[in-house]
């Protein structure tokens, strides 16, 4: 079982401005969305989880051992992270080699790495682009390459930073599938999101960050029904909730199909 235990986590880049002000969280099993305004500390938080930054106070434990004892490169074997901008990592001239870079780094054999990479590229729908140069592909395809690059490493924790950015409907559906598959494999999925609709539809748990603190943490359904707290964090409710509220429909809806079903019921009544 995979778990991340975060205790009293503080972090600041410069002395006079604290970015994270004491975060306590226990992350385990559930797929979790992290939402919050720009500058709320979301990206800093996941960078700390990943060992790219070191906490100024407090500790992060991954399956019982402190992440301080790992280097970022060691931790890569256990915690994978997909960055916002795929251009910051792509350097090989072939898609397949790019995806194999991570697995080879963490000590997979050439054949194993190739298999994992092929499997991951299939999941993101790029299995017919193996020999292409990544820079000949579109930005959304390159984003898929960076997702495949992390999937191929087969880590216990997978963190996404804004995966839906620049993706069309089909791309989002694919990411949804990938997330639920990771969930069924027993992996811990964390995801920073600005797309509330996607967060509400896909994730079991939602954490709201605001100015370096956790403002709200709970099941996605509960979090997105709490309009006041969301407003305090300068966030909107998902569109399905807004629609339901505006047409005077009671209840909490996180997906379109729930709303449609409720409307149909109301229609026939």
């Amino acid at each position, binding site marked *: 079982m995979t778990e991340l235990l975060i205790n009293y986590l503080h972090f600041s880049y410069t002395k006079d401005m604290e970015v994270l002000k004491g975060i306590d969280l226990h992350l385990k099993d559930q797929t979790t969305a992290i939402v919050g305004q720009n500058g709320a500390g979301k990206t800093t938080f996941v*960078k700390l989880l*990943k060992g*790219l930054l070191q906490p100024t106070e407090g500790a992060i434990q991954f399956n019982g051992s402190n992440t301080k004892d790992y*280097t*970022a*490169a060691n931790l*890569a*074997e256990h915690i*994978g*992270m997909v*960055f916002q*901008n795929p*251009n*910051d*990592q*792509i*350097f*090989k001239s072939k898609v397949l080699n790019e995806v194999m*870079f*991570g697995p080879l*780094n*963490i000590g997979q054999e050439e054949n194993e790495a190739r298999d994992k990479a092929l499997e991951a590229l299939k999941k993101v729908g790029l299995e017919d682009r193996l020999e292409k140069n990544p*820079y000949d592909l579109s930005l959304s395809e390159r984003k898929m390459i960076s997702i495949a*690059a*992390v999937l191929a*490493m087969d880590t216990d924790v997978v963190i996404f930073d804004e995966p839906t950015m620049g993706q069309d409907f089909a791309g989002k559906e694919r990411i949804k599938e990938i997330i639920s598959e990771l969930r069924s494999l027993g992996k811990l999925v964390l995801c920073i999101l600005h797309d509330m609709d996607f967060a509400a539809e896909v994730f079991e748990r939602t954490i709201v960050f605001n100015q370096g603190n956790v403002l709200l943490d709970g099941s996605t359904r509960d979090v997105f029904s709490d309009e006041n707290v969301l407003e305090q964090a300068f966030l909107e409710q998902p569109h399905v909730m807004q629609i339901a509220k505006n047409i005077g429909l009671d209840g909490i809806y996180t997906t379109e199909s729930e709303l449609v079903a409720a409307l149909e019921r109301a229609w026939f009544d």
Partner: protein
Amino acid sequence: MSAMTLYVEKNSIIHHMDPLTKLMYVFVSIAATYIVPVHEFVFLTAAFSLLLIIIGKVFMKILPIIAISIILIISIIIVQGMFHPDNKTVLFSIGAITFYQEGLSYAVLLTVRVINMLSAFGVLILTTKPDELIERLIKKGMSPKIGYVFLSVLQIIPQIRATMGKIADAQRSRGMETEGSLIVRIRAFFPLIGPVVLNSLNDTRERAIALEMRGFNTKGKKTFLNESREYPYRKIIQFLLIAILMATIVWRVLL
């Protein structure tokens, strides 16, 4: 993200001077110390440049710059003190090494000139915003393209540094060690430099398009975002600087 510049934000009379006046001061004060190779005069000029630095409240910033040039200064003193062709009067000896008065005197002259040069440039660079200087030069007729080249160099380097940080994070996340022995570092070079170069090329293209969208190359008279400021005593100081330069030339020719 800070731009790569030595400019120090302070509020002093020197900061409020016209960048062109300061540029002129750099030129005149350096030229004068060469036109008039008299110790007292050169000392005075250097002292005046340092005084301007102190008035500009950036004295602590010029010290490390002068300190770096100490190596140059020491080598000047040794070489000139021992080997200057006019060396006649022995000043002192350390073992087999003899220092001569003429050489040392010349070395002192050179040293003070170097210090003056650094301080004069310091007055300009430490107290002037680069974009203000460039804008003044463009208003005086310098090609905006050249101005853009200067400014973009100052901005691009910190930008590349920031990109480097992000790329290093992304590659470390994929299990690449970036710290450790030389071999580890060499192996890390390509995964790091590849995206940096590609991103920079991309950025450059985007920036060129963005500039063109806003009519960078249009012909015709352009206006400026920042209104022309009235700089204090601009004309008087510039006139004085030119007069001083003339006077030194006259002195040199006549005496």
